[in-house]
């Protein structure tokens, strides 16, 4: 409501400034045949009702502030403090058609809806003139009923839109917040793997290997293989390890066997070497470096 009222004020202010020239120009432009502004009850009306007068330039702006014929009608009704449920249809129709006539006179292209509404109003008016039987259903027979319903419904949403507009809103009243996250370390999430998948994969590998190549897959006790890995891993940090240190007492005899097999296998694969600085001296194990290799 407020912005509409403001708009109207500015239109009127503009009107005062331009009354003289604006008015005469419009007449000149239209040439000799000054069409009546409106036909009221068949009587041509060459002058607009005073309360309706808006200079042509402003009129276009004015009309743009309406969201269609229902909005324009509501404006006409509300500003005269009339009741929607009992619209003085003749007056309102006259005023509405006056606007429409002005529009076409000014060659302002009107949306078809405005013309349709003019027709509806004219039709209601003519039905109002017909004698109506006094019946209990009179209320519902009121030719205005459908228009009233539409006006009421439109007005509800028009107000709802205005109230929506004043709700505190993001980017205008309140603002979403965010802080920088570059200091946050994002953990990498890895896919889950089921051990069975690994086994199935290996089974496939073996089958393929058998079929495709003559590669012989030797079986070695995994524990020996594992021990080989752990010894190598240890030798990466400790470049020289006393031979006995590679055996763990708590592992018992079997553990010792595994370690020994692993050391021997590593030696055979030339991954480590076992050295003795002096006869009967301590046995030492060290990784075989490129430089140390033959």
């Amino acid at each position, binding site marked *: 409501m407020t912005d509409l009222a403001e708009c109207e004020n500015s239109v009127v202010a503009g009107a005062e400034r331009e009354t003289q020239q604006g008015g005469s120009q419009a007449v000149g432009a239209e040439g000799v045949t000054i069409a009546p502004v409106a036909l009221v009850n068949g009587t041509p009306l060459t002058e607009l009702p005073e309360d309706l007068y808006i200079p042509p330039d402003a009129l276009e702006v004015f009309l743009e502030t309406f969201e269609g014929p229902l*909005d324009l009608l509501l404006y006409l009704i509300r500003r005269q403090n009339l009741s*929607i449920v009992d619209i003085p249809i003749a007056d309102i129709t006259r005023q509405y058609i006056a606007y429409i006539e002005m529009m076409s006179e000014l060659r302002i292209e009107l949306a078809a809806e405005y013309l349709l509404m003019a027709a509806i109003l004219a039709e209601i008016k003519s039905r109002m003139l017909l004698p109506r039987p006094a019946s209990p259903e009179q209320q519902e027979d009121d030719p205005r009923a459908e228009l009233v319903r539409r006006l009421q419904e439109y007005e509800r949403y028009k107000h709802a839109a205005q109230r929506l507009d004043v709700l505190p809103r993001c980017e205008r009243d309140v603002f979403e917040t965010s802080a920088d996250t570059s200091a946050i370390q994002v953990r990498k999430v890895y896919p889950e793997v089921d051990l069975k998948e690994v086994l199935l994969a290996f089974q496939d590998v073996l089958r393929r290997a058998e079929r495709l190549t003559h590669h012989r897959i030797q079986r070695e006790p995994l524990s020996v293989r594992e021990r080989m890995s752990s010894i190598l891993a240890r030798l990466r940090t400790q470049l020289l390890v006393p031979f006995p240190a590679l055996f763990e007492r708590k592992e018992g005899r079997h553990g010792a066997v595994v370690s020994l097999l692993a050391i021997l296998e590593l030696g055979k694969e030339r991954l480590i070497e076992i050295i003795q600085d002096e006869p009967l001296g301590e046995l030492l194990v060290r990784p075989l470096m490129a430089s140390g290799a033959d």
Partner: protein
Amino acid sequence: MELKSIIEAALLAAGRPLSLAELENLFAEHERPEPAEIQAALADLAADCRDRPVELKQVASGYRLQVRAAFSPWVSRLFEERPGRYSRAFLETLAIIAYRQPVTRGEIEDIRGVAVSSSIVRTLQERGWIQVVGHKEVPGRPALLATTKQFLDYFNLRSLDELPPLQEFLDDLALESAPKAQPMIENADHEST
């Protein structure tokens, strides 16, 4: 680390509302707090914010920290374009969809008495405020439009129930002369102070 601080950190890091479920999922299963504990921490956080320029707000898709409306005179200068000014046609179309959903374009046109501009519908969709939720089983199977969670988030609402109530017919109101619009406006004032 305090639960309340973790929640604040997450809300600021996310830069969007986080639901209770999302807040729960910040934690590994074995350390996951009960929903009630998270609720309590949220209440604490809201209280902490009392003297700060941000407030904790629950909207449709969860909780968010937002800069209070009182700071908009300064903060809005950060945004060159002045968003948030919408035409009446835009707002009326949105209001009809919000209050009457699901609704077809034809129904909107019936209510407004004018054609609905395609660009308005497109803009509403691009903003993620409305979506097509189905098709009406009438000739032409027109799309049924409804609002989204983002619409509620943007307008600071938790659910459609929080929309200002649709007024009864104004003439009826005038008779009762009970200004029903009042509570809604008071409410808005509260939030902005």
